[in-house]
């Protein structure tokens, strides 16, 4: 496997120094899943002489390995770490450790949950003794203690809501946090005032438990996003981290990508990706552009030809002169296109915020009206204030604040078990609205690797010869040929590979050639079609054709079922691809997709997505390549397979880890179910308000009633959300649940 092809230099770049000659290396190991994996890996790593400490984290599927830079025998070779992991039967890859920012936010949220939970429990304890009838002096004492506990909790745990509410108001909007902040701070102020005047009712318990419940919702939401992000960031990086620089004096040095300047000469070995845009100086080769442009057939390059970053070098070593800096390369253009395209996603407002935009003015108006009514009619402004606060607390969107995140967390967990990662809750909401699905072809509908479909050969011996030649090449067509012939081919010695042509072997005076027609037979014979959707390879003997092999890009498993399922549920499907039109048409015909557009540039792909969006469609874009990234950003919502380019994975809202395309209809189904549950939860929460608000307006809502009503409504909402899980378990009962498998390596192989 190519997982071992990570060079020592690249590892040294990824590992960070701990001082005293020790370095720490974090690796992602997607396959660990149980206790024996932990001990197998840790044992294998600890056996290496230079490894000081190895620890597996099963939750994030990572290994942290501390190793010494130098041993007694000289410099340590850190590639041994990856080799040891591979030897134990696991795949390992370097990953970009993403900002520690996320971890910090999670810890802050957990801390806030802890603090508000502590405060809520203690205040509730005191409140229960007040409710069960304490005499006036004790009640006042308890209220004062509650006030003192609540104040720091309010400041510490409430800051998330206050900050977000302030931000929304500053921009002239409202969100869910505005009524929350208002209810929390007003109820605290009124309770404090009541306490100071020896009043009977204080709302400290409601204030703090409100915060506690809402923070649970917020923390769940954050943990879900973090889990998905960690899984996606743990995938193999496809873009190289650095490059082998050829200095003018002939020495070679591995440098990070950012240090390459225009005019530098870089060596690119077979099986590596081109690090920056450049021009070939020395060498000939074939490049696999599948991930760059979506073109399924490799392209031959020779000296003087421009090459773009991200292309995989297949057949011969190259020396490339950089013509652009890494930050100006193709990738940078794609990123600027993506920023310009940022479409439905940026404009989309979360359902909770949309609800709040209607809900909070209504609630605030209601509180104000009851305040004025009680004040004007009854004349007791203090009592009027208490009623208004009771209305605010009763209507505070506690259930609403929990209703959405809990459903989304349950839905994301369900998708996670099927190997689909959701980056955030709003992606699920947007996915539920989709009515059109646009697919990229190469790498999405197809696997991006060819499959032998037809052979024209005189006899079996020719097949064996072709296979014997094919095993010598990394060219995808050769590899597919060697794989599908199966039995061992005729052995050849002295096989040479001619980039842009094929393979050549001499046996005495006989010359066998395997490759494209022009190369194998010396000229293109009449009757062959250049623009055929099938790629072809010819075997020749001294220039005479022996056999012809036809290949097509293998369809992704479950592609047909997925398209059929989408069609039967009245989704419009179309293909937007960067590959040749004839190839695209062929795939579209096989899958029964009526609209197929080929030969599109990244900008045209974005254009198609935007055109669909403007005509009122909500588009789900499924794609993988660098060229798809802008379209992924422009679409209403987007999905990418785990084998996608780094930027494609970053741009997509959902990433699926299994090889089957069924993930697309599955994800849509779960998203729709969760959207239905969210609506139900809204209905439940509003129904509860309709019952409770008259009680509050009538001035009958004591703190006890508020506490009971608030807890029950939260419990009902959470229970309703968990039904999604139950439904999923039922529907899964027939099938055996499969662990999420990562296909992150398929492309590199």
């Amino acid at each position, binding site marked *: 496997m190519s997982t071992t092809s990570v060079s020592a230099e690249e590892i040294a770049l990824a590992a960070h120094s701990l001082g005293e000659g020790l370095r720490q290396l974090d690796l992602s190991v997607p396959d660990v899943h149980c*206790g024996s994996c932990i*001990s197998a890996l840790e044992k294998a790593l600890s056996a290496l002489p230079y490894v000081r400490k190895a620890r597996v984290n*099963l*939750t994030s599927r990572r290994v942290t390995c501390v190793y010494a830079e130098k041993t007694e025998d000289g410099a340590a070779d850190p590639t041994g770490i990856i080799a040891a992991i591979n030897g134990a039967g696991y795949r390992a890859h370097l990953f970009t450790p993403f900002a520690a920012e996320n971890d910090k936010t999670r810890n802050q949220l957990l801390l806030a949950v*802890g603090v508000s939970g*502590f405060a809520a429990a*203690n205040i509730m304890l005191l409140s229960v003794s007040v409710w069960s009838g304490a005499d006036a002096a004790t009640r006042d004492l308890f209220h004062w203690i509650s006030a003192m*506990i609540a104040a720091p909790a309010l400041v510490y745990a409430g800051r998330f809501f206050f900050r977000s509410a302030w931000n929304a108001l500053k921009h002239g909007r409202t969100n869910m946090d505005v009524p929350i902040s208002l209810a929390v701070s007003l109820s605290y102020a009124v309770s404090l005032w009541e306490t100071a005047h020896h009043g009977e009712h204080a709302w400290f318990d409601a204030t703090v438990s409100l915060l506690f419940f809402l923070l649970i919702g917020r923390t769940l939401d954050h943990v879900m996003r973090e889990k998905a992000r960690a899984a996606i960031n743990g995938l193999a990086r496809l873009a190289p981290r650095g490059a082998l620089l050829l200095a003018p004096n002939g020495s070679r040095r591995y440098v990070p990508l950012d240090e390459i300047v225009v005019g530098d000469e870089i060596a690119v070995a077979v099986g590596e990706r081109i690090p920056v845009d450049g021009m070939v100086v020395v060498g000939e080769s074939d490049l696999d552009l599948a991930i760059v442009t979506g073109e399924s057939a490799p392209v031959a390059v020779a000296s003087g030809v421009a090459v773009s970053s991200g292309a995989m070098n297949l057949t011969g070593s190259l020396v490339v002169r950089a013509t652009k800096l890494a930050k100006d390369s193709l990738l940078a253009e794609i990123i600027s296109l993506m920023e310009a395209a940022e479409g439905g996603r940026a404009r989309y407002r979360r359902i909770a915020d949309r609800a709040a935009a209607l809900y909070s003015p209504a609630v605030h108006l209601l509180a104000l009206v009851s305040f004025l009514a009680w004040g004007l009619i009854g004349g007791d402004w203090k009592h009027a204030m208490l009623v208004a606060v009771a209305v605010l607390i009763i209507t505070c969107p506690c259930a609403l604040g929990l209703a959405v995140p809990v459903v989304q967390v349950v839905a994301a967990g369900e998708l996670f078990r099927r190997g689909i990662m959701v980056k955030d809750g709003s992606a699920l909401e947007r996915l539920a609205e989709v009515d059109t699905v646009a697919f990229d072809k190469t790498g999405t509908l197809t696997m991006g690797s060819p499959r032998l479909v037809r052979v024209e050969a005189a006899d079996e011996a020719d097949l064996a010869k072709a296979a014997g030649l094919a095993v010598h090449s990394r060219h995808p067509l050769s590899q597919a040929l060697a794989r599908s012939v199966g039995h061992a081919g005729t052995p050849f010695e002295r096989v040479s590979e001619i980039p842009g042509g094929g393979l050549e072997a001499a046996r005495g005076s006989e010359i066998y050639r395997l490759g494209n027609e022009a190369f194998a037979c010396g000229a293109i014979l009449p009757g062959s079609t250049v623009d055929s959707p099938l790629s072809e390879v010819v075997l020749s003997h001294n220039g005479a054709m022996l056999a012809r092999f036809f290949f097509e890009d293998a369809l992704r498993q479950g592609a047909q079922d997925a398209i059929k399922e989408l069609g039967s549920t009245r989704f419009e499907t179309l293909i937007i691809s960067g590959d040749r039109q004839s190839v695209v048409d062929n795939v579209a015909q096989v899958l029964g997709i009526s609209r197929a557009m080929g030969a599109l540039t990244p900008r045209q792909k974005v254009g198609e997505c935007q055109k669909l969006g403007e005509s009122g469609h909500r588009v789900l874009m499924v794609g993988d390549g660098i060229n798809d990234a802008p379209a992924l950003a422009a679409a209403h919502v987007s999905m990418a397979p785990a084998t996608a380019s780094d930027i494609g994975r970053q741009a997509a809202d959902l990433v699926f880890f299994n090889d089957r395309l069924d993930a697309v209809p599955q994800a849509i189904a779960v998203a729709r179910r969760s959207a239905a549950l969210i609506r139900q939860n809204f209905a439940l929460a509003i129904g509860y308000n309709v019952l409770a608000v008259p009680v509050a307006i009538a001035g009958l809502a004591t703190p006890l009633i508020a506490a009971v009503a608030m807890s029950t409504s939260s419990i009902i909402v959470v229970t309703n959300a968990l039904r999604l899980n139950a439904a999923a378990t039922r529907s899964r009962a027939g099938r055996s649940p499969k662990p999420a498998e990562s296909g992150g390596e398929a492309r590199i192989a």
Partner: protein
Amino acid sequence: MNMLIYLIPIALFMGGIGLAAFLWSLGNGQYDDLQGAAWRVLADDESGPPKS
């Protein structure tokens, strides 16, 4: 009534201990790998200290 003077501080103190323990465990990375810890209990750790 008078017993409240010391009962309440005791209750708060005990709650505070719980909170402090939670904060410590959070800072100490006890929640970093929940699944792994469950498995590690079952693993026969041969690299532990000799038993004799």
